[in-house]
């Protein structure tokens, strides 16, 4: 197969930086089980099926943490590596820079600190109340 380099040889658009992600609203779905006798597919999701996409935001995993990342915003050069590596999408980005951590979901794994090329993230002992 030959590729015609002229056809559609557009310069690729520069990678867009992701939009700012706000910390999730404090909202947890509730389930009334007082009428458990009447559960049926019309009223409740059978077999624990989840029909609400993206609902892991309600599953707060921050309580597992022993270390907490602290961002020095002055040192951040906006490379976004912490954002891409974070397994819990917990890096809060504003105006192209990491400005904070979603502590309700950050498990304190330290990957962001390890990957940060400007050493802008430090892992500190998490002091729980």
């Amino acid at each position: 197969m030959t590729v015609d380099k002229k056809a559609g040889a557009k310069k690729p658009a520069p990678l867009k930086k992701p939009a700012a992600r706000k910390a999730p609203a404090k909202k947890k779905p509730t389930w009334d089980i007082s009428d458990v006798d009447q559960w049926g597919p019309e009223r409740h999701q059978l077999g624990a099926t989840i029909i609400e996409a993206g609902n892991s935001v309600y599953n707060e995993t921050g309580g597992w943490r022993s270390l907490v990342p602290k961002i020095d915003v002055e040192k951040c050069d906006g490379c976004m590596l912490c954002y891409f590596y974070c397994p819990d999408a917990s890096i809060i980005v504003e105006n192209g820079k990491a400005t904070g951590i979603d502590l309700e979901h950050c498990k304190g794994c330290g990957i962001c600190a390890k990957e940060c090329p400007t050493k802008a993230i430090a892992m500190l002992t998490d002091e729980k109340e």
Partner: protein
Amino acid sequence: MAITQSEILAVTGNEAVAEAMGQIDPDVVCAYPITPATEIVQLYAQMVADGKVGTEFVTVESEHSAMSAVIGSSAGGVRTMTATSSQGFALMWEVLFVAASYRLPIVMTTVNRALSGPINIHCDHSDTMGGRDTGWIQLYGENHQEAYDNCIQAVRIAEHMDIRVPTMHMYDGYVISGAIGPLQMLSKEQVQAFIGPYRANNPLLDAKRPVTVGPFDGLHGWFFEHKVAQNRAMDRALKVIQEVADEYAELSGRQYGLLDPYQLDDAEVAIVVVGSTAGTTRMVVDKLRAKGVKAGMVRVRAFRPFPHEAYAEALQHVKVVGVMDRADSFGAQGGPVFMEVRSALYDCDPRPQVLPFIYGLGGRDIFPDNIEQAFAELEEVAGSKKRATTERRYLNLRKD
């Protein structure tokens, strides 16, 4: 509605079920052949190859894969069936629970056969009795006709929107599966009208409404509540099974129920039995009745859910009940059916005596003489003032 009776065909039990499946024409069948259910899978594969059905037939490398594949297909949003037996059923074990807890309306034919060992291919009920707590509805059929009828009704029961519980229906290996017996079939149009179009519930393949099936629920979640909901659906299934049976009776003229009583109204001694042995037992009841013995019988049809109130009502006036189990529960007080029936009768006042009989393991023949012997023991206990022990009585056990 007028019932048009079709001609009577001579078929094996497996042929009867393969015909039923052909008329149901499910979207997907994933199956692995195993004696004595092989014929169903083989005949169905032939129908698919001949273009007689529109089914996607998935050949899998084991029964564990068969059950996993039907779960995938059913969660995907289509009508799905499979068939198995004995060791194959055992290999499905862990996935059977998954199918039930996902509330997928899968229909499975299980031809009853002994579990190893010693290795044995003949009929007993140890395979599906072992699977009684998997969360599946269990319907035990008696003969060729009921195997066909139960297969069609199972589709309606499993898919009923009030319950959505996978349903297995059983019949005896060889005695029914391989032997030739009479069958009256409905037309494919009648069957299609009876089962209706498939209604998917949150299908995985609906790209516009993405869903997660089978999520992890181990973080202080709702596992316990889901189990309660599953059991409540089982309770509701009793009504669904009866309603579907009544509707099927209007169509076919053949009435089924949760249980199948025979000559019970004035019975003093009665036997509870599962599967093809009910036919022999009925004959023995007739013979004893001719001699003046007030004998009766109940055949088990729905075993899960177990209609304990219906058993209490049917048997409360009987003096002594013998429960014939074609499977044993090692170390328990008796076989699985014995324990259910005895528990169902516990609240009756006066309380009938219930005695455990074990028969037919690994395909051991059961003759009318053996059943007469069981009735004779029940009569003896009924005439005695002492309560009998609940030690197991074995029918047709070798003496030498």
